[in-house]
């Protein structure tokens, strides 16, 4: 198996050197949505997103993909590709997530169907406060109850993502950096708009509390 791969890689390299402007020979590797190509792509995703897409703490935190709603997964893959969520960390997310569009649905279905154990310590001293924010919001500062869209157990639905079991460092980073990281095409109002003012109205302490609570949900 390895010699074949090396050969493929080598020919891809030659191609890339011949046409540097195209970057690496992204779409050369094989027919796009065959089983083999899908399995290889899943392996690629799980190098970073952890076994079964359960999430992983590297220098940057990789979010849990397992059990995520397919619609949200596809939305984000499109947001990366269309540069609406490209620079959330100093590694270009559009490059890392470069995919044939036809591959997105298959990957979304794959990760939606997995249910590995949660990464993280689960509940913490803040989780009680977090639960209250999740279920009731913070009326004084116009933070709505999260439960309304993300569901009673944080499982999400359609375009509203599952938050249950998400790595707390990741959830915190999203909520604290929302308007810097997401919805980056000024000409397009995308699905990230709904969270912009919600995230912007939350204090750091509230974010920590709700993130701890969400990590504890399975």
């Amino acid at each position, binding site marked *: 198996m390895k010699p074949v791969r090396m050969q493929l890689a080598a020919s891809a390299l030659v191609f890339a050197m011949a046409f540097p402007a195209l970057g690496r020979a992204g779409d050369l590797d094989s027919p796009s949505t065959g089983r083999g190509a899908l399995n290889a792509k899943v392996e*690629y995703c799980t190098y970073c997103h952890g076994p079964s897409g359960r999430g992983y703490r590297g220098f940057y935190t990789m979010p849990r993909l397992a059990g995520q709603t397919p619609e949200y997964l596809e939305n984000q893959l499109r947001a990366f590709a269309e540069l609406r969520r490209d620079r959330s960390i100093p590694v270009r997310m559009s490059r890392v997530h470069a995919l044939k569009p036809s591959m997105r649905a298959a990957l979304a279905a794959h990760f939606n169907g997995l249910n590995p154990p949660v990464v993280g310590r689960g509940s913490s001293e803040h989780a009680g406060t977090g639960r209250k924010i999740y279920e009731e919001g913070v009326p004084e500062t116009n933070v709505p109850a999260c439960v309304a869209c993300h569901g009673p157990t944080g499982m999400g639905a359609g375009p509203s993502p599952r938050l249950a079991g998400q790595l707390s460092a990741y959830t915190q980073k999203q909520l604290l950096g929302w308007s810097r990281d997401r919805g980056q095409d000024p000409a397009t109002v995308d699905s990230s708009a709904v969270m912009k003012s919600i995230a912007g109205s939350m204090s750091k302490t509230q974010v920590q509390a709700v993130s701890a609570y969400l990590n504890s949900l399975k």
Partner: protein
Amino acid sequence: MKLIPPALAILAIVSASAAAFATDDRGRSPGQVLSDNNCTWCHGPSLQGYTTAPRLAGQRAEYVVNQILNFKAHSRDNPLSKQVMWGAANTVTPEAAHEISDYFSGLHAEPANDGNRSTVETGAALYREGSAGSNIPSCAICHGPDGQGVGAIPRLGGLSYRYLKRKLEQWNEGYHAAALAPMPAVSSSLSATEIDAISSYLSFVH
């Protein structure tokens, strides 16, 4: 390459290990004493690496502890590990492994600068962004933008070209298959040219 006869090495280690936890009148920590008596001999006087022995200065403590345990368990089984490090690690108790690793991680790390300059640019691009089309992940995502590492993920910036290259090649030859995920698999996504370019680039990073 000059190989140090293993028997000599073991002798040096055994004779030094008795002193490892003795109090030291020069004010050295137990980790430093252990290192001075055993490890600097191959890894260089200030642990910056020497010939085939990689730099330990500045390496992440958690990573070093894991490697010492791997050597002790014989799961890191590439030829040089087997030849020299199984013996060297044998004398290091798990408690001493923590002490010595904390000591290493606090030392200033110098880059080896021994790669090939002409492949640095290719190596840097691969390191930073990987190549999604060939299913090569970005290394920077885990090892950090400057190869600094974090937790059990090692610092790669400035390790020697020859060490990095052999390490990645040996993973592809089937050695040290029990390394922490995703490493042996990530190695297999790289061609020989790509291994060469990334290793070159990293040797200059500081």
